[in-house]
């Protein structure tokens, strides 16, 4: 059976070019870059090139830092715990602002800090699943240490007004972090235009390998490392550097940014074609205006059909989609974004997310368009809560 992968917000295929770039660094060029001998020094040019690709990818300046780490979860934890140690435990701040629809790597870290006495504001989102920059402005107090708002949401694809939020924070002298995991390769990400202090990303979300990520730190922004140890990464992140991972992430960044035009035109066109077909089914709600979303994502709510059952049926037909969040699959809770936009409680468990990539073909889209309505029909026929 032909298999179709439409779960690219969860993880992506490693671009074969990326794999080719990484391959030499396992069995052949395995040195530790910190070593003084040729096995150590021979890996450095490729690492330098990868760093360059990362800096260019987000247009960072040479004076800024990009710390290579193990994933965006680590990056998000590093920023938030770092601010706790720097500005809260080690300063006079006591407040963090975030949203109700951040990734758990942000919200769970904030919940952990709440237990330690930190005040956290979780801004509610509107019916499209976003906040307004004024919400941030109004929530800032004299004791606010950090604002953390994602660039784009993983479940809906909704784009947040990070530029306005960044300026609002700057005006009030508050540090601003953005989780840009879902923005890299889907939107232009330029840290010169958007004055964030911290920005996090994960390679496996843009056709790089799993287990490697990056943390941008603007020059002058405070940083307390999460991983203490040897002097790797200028003392900002210890641990032997994952050379193959870094080289792969650099290449993946270059390709992601290089393919941005394609993403914003072709991937968008394919997504819209699919979305049109989905939206044509009765009693289906697509979350968020298209223009406000990343070009690859559609989150739809299919009344009367439980999300997991839909995923199961699609999977039987060879189509990989998701209920909205890979994390949700291990827990029993409703999709948090569906709950947060909360138009209708009955829809909280009816989400299905299609997330495309530059590897998605028109043929695949056509196949999904053919299969999807049949699956919905079958499940609505079984459903106890849907009467056609």
């Amino acid at each position, binding site marked *: 059976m032909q298999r179709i992968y439409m779960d690219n917000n969860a993880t992506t295929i490693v671009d074969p070019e990326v794999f080719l770039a990484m391959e030499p660094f396992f069995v052949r060029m395995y040195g530790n870059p910190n070593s003084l001998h040729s096995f150590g020094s021979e890996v450095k040019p490729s690492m330098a090139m990868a760093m360059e690709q990362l800096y260019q990818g987000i247009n960072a300046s040479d004076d800024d830092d990009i710390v290579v780490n193990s994933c965006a979860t680590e990056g998000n934890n590093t920023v938030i715990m770092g601010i706790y140690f720097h500005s809260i435990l080690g300063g006079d701040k006591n407040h963090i602002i975030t949203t109700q629809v951040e990734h758990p790597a942000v919200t769970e870290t904030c919940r952990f800090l709440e237990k330690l006495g930190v005040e956290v504001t979780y801004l509610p989102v509107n019916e499209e699943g976003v906040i307004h920059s004024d919400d941030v402005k109004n929530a800032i107090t004299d004791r606010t240490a950090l604002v953390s708002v994602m660039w784009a949401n993983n479940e809906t694809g909704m784009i947040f007004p990070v530029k306005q939020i960044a300026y609002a924070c700057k005006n009030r002298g508050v540090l601003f972090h953005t989780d840009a995991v879902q923005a890299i390769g889907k939107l232009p990400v330029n840290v010169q235009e958007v004055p964030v202090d911290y920005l996090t990303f994960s390679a496996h979300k843009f056709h790089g390998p799993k287990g490697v990520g990056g943390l941008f730190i603007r020059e002058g922004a405070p940083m307390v490392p999460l991983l203490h140890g040897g002097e790797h990464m200028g003392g900002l992140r210890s641990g032997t550097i994952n050379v193959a991972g870094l080289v792969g992430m650099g290449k993946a960044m270059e390709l992601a940014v290089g393919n941005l035009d394609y993403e914003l035109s072709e991937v968008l066109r394919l997504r819209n074609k699919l979305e049109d077909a989905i939206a044509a089914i009765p009693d289906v709600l697509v979350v968020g205006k298209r223009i406000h979303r990343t070009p690859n994502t559609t989150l739809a709510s299919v009344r*009367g*059909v*439980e999300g*997991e*059952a839909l995923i*199961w*049926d699609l999977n*039987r037909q060879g189509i990989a989609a998701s209920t909205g969040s890979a994390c949700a699959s*291990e827990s*029993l809770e*409703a999709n948090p974004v569906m709950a947060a936009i909360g138009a209708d*409680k*009955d829809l*909280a*468990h*009816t989400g299905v997310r299609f997330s495309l990539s530059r590897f998605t073909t028109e043929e695949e889209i056509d196949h999904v368009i053919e299969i999807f309505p049949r699956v919905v029909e079958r499940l609505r*026929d*079984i*459903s*106890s*809560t*849907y009467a056609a």
Partner: protein
Amino acid sequence: EYSQEVNRRMAEPEHRGDITEVQALKMGGKLIVADYGAESCGDAVRLFWVVDPATDRILDCKFKSFGCGTAIASSDIMAELCIGKTVDEAIKITNIDVEYALRDNPDTPAVPPQKMHCSVMAYDVIKRAASIYKNVDESTLEDEVIVCECARVSLGTIEEVIRLN
């Protein structure tokens, strides 16, 4: 991780559907319709029984479900287990029986552990149908402590799972 039987029942649930008053009358039985769960909670099931008032025997059983694959497969096997039993016998069907019946071989669980809760509703809805039929309060049929409302796992169920594994 899922048994073939779960996959088969999900793909082709034999007992899905509904039963009308007219159909029940034709079979010579009384129609019982029981609902359990809610869409907003993530799972909902509706059970249809045709019960012979003379013998208390369940003549036919069908279901509809808003739930995941495991919930649908569990409901289907539950319906099958009900048919031919008396209402009192049916009450004794537990989610453990349901899960067992979904196994391909006796030693391998039919579903991963985090999906066990999805079979519990099949058991709860029987209780509700029986209470409607007998016109008694559900609590008289069930005196177990509910551990988790949404997942509907009772302490008794958990103990039973532990014992059986």
